[in-house]
């Protein structure tokens, strides 16, 4: 469904992603794990058109979307729930959710809004509050729900557990598991490698802008190098 080939990303003269290739099949949940600054977020941003692709290609459902504009990529069916949540702080919870459905013109938007608030009751409680007033965990739920409001064909999550208390992290992963169970195709970036590998079908390990290992999540989880470096065993 999504295929990256020899993707390179640079900020000015500094290249941070050095030619990576990866695939996500329909219905799959793929995790990207690796240390800080390895280039995971840059990869996701390049897919979404937030940063330019230096060279290589991004294919989505057989179409080349390399360096297409961000709004065209969203319309193609790719939505990202970005690192650090990035809710619209002064807009209300409802307005944030409706922004998620910005590209949609169908009649089901209100029904989806209801569904999201069933899935995240806290959002119903806080619906008229400014998003910036929510706690970190609540903002993450809002960011996830907002991404789903687009009815994407693939959803990218960039460190949804970042900066959250352990109890909240667990509930974020429960939510992701629920979304996966609904049949959503997922590309997940996580520092919390153990949780990510438990959830994902397959995974890629990033190191300094390169993919150094890939395979079924179960295999990576039991690989001695991964266990030592990322799982703290």
């Amino acid at each position: 469904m999504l295929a990256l080939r020899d993707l390179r990303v640079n900020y000015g003269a500094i290249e941070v992603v050095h030619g990576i290739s990866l695939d996500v099949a329909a219905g799959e949940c793929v995790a990207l794990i690796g240390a800080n600054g390895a280039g995971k977020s840059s990869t996701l941003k390049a897919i979404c058109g937030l940063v330019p692709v230096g060279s290589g290609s991004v294919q989505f459902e057989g179409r080349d979307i390399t360096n297409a504009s961000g709004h065209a990529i969203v319309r193609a069916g790719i939505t990202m729930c970005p690192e650090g949540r990035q809710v619209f702080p002064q807009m209300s919870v409802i307005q944030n959710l409706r922004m998620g459905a910005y590209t949609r013109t169908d009649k089901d938007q209100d029904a989806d809004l209801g569904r999201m608030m069933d899935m995240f009751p806290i959002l119903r409680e806080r619906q008229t509050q400014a998003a910036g007033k929510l706690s970190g965990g609540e903002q993450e739920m809002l960011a996830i729900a907002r991404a789903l409001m687009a009815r994407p064909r693939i959803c990218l999550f960039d460190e949804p557990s970042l900066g959250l208390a352990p109890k909240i992290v667990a509930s974020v992963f429960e939510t992701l598991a629920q979304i996966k169970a609904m049949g959503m195709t997922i590309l997940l970036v996580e520092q919390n490698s153990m949780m990510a590998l438990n959830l994902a079908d397959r995974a890629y390990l990033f190191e300094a802008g390169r993919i150094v290992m890939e395979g079924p999540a179960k295999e990576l989880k039991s690989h001695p190098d991964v266990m030592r470096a990322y799982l703290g065993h």
Partner: protein
Amino acid sequence: MLIEILQQTINGLAIGGVYVLIALGLTTVFGILGIAHFAHGSVSMFGGYLTFFLVTSQGLPVLAAIPIALVAGFVLGLLIEIVAYRPVRHANHINAFIVALGLTMMVEGINLQLFGHEQIVIPTGLSKVFRLGGVTVPELRIYVIIAAIVLVAAMMLFVERTKTGQAIRAVAENRDAAILMGVNVNSIPLIVFGISTSLGVAAGIMVGALFAIAPGIGEGFVVKGFAVLILGGLGSFPGAILGGTVLGITESIAAGFISSAYKDVIAFVVMILVLLIRPQGLLGRSP
């Protein structure tokens, strides 16, 4: 005394409406692009001049000239965005600043060339004066206040109730996140400039009908517009509305009770006092 205050408040509401319309344009442009669009006042007065021209030289009725000027304002806004600001969009902010200053001089020059240096007043033929108690209210002033309220309400509805309006807010609050929602961030500044300039033209027409337009007037209004933004709280719509109204009424009362020569001084003194107590402005968020 009470009657005099009431009288000046009504006078102040009319000029306050003009300030609000100018400030709303400035604040939306600032929110989206982070630029201080200094030329806004001169462009607004161009709209007033254009209406005057359509009425006096072309013989159009005022009510026909106004919509034409508003549409012309919208188109002019698009042109300003494309020709003046788009090229410096990714450059340092100082570039946009210099473009804004250059554009101001250019538009002032164009106004002078096309419409001359004589002051003009748009003839509306509205000369009735209502008397309520001891308060006298010219009918023109009432129409100006009503028009300002309608335009501000329409703008609020547009921003709060339409997808495009929400996209404008979203881009102002978080540009990257707005892109991730599928907002085309290239077309939003166009829409913002079109609408803002249209509102500015409405303000220019009001100035031309209530008072007079002359070279340099537009620059005075843009300074007041920015004062309103700071007074109300940068980036806040309700703040701009409250700030403009407060500034208009303060000025009027100052002019009525002290001297119209001091009205600007007093208006700015009030602004400084407000900022001493609330540095974030009347309705701004505390940092």
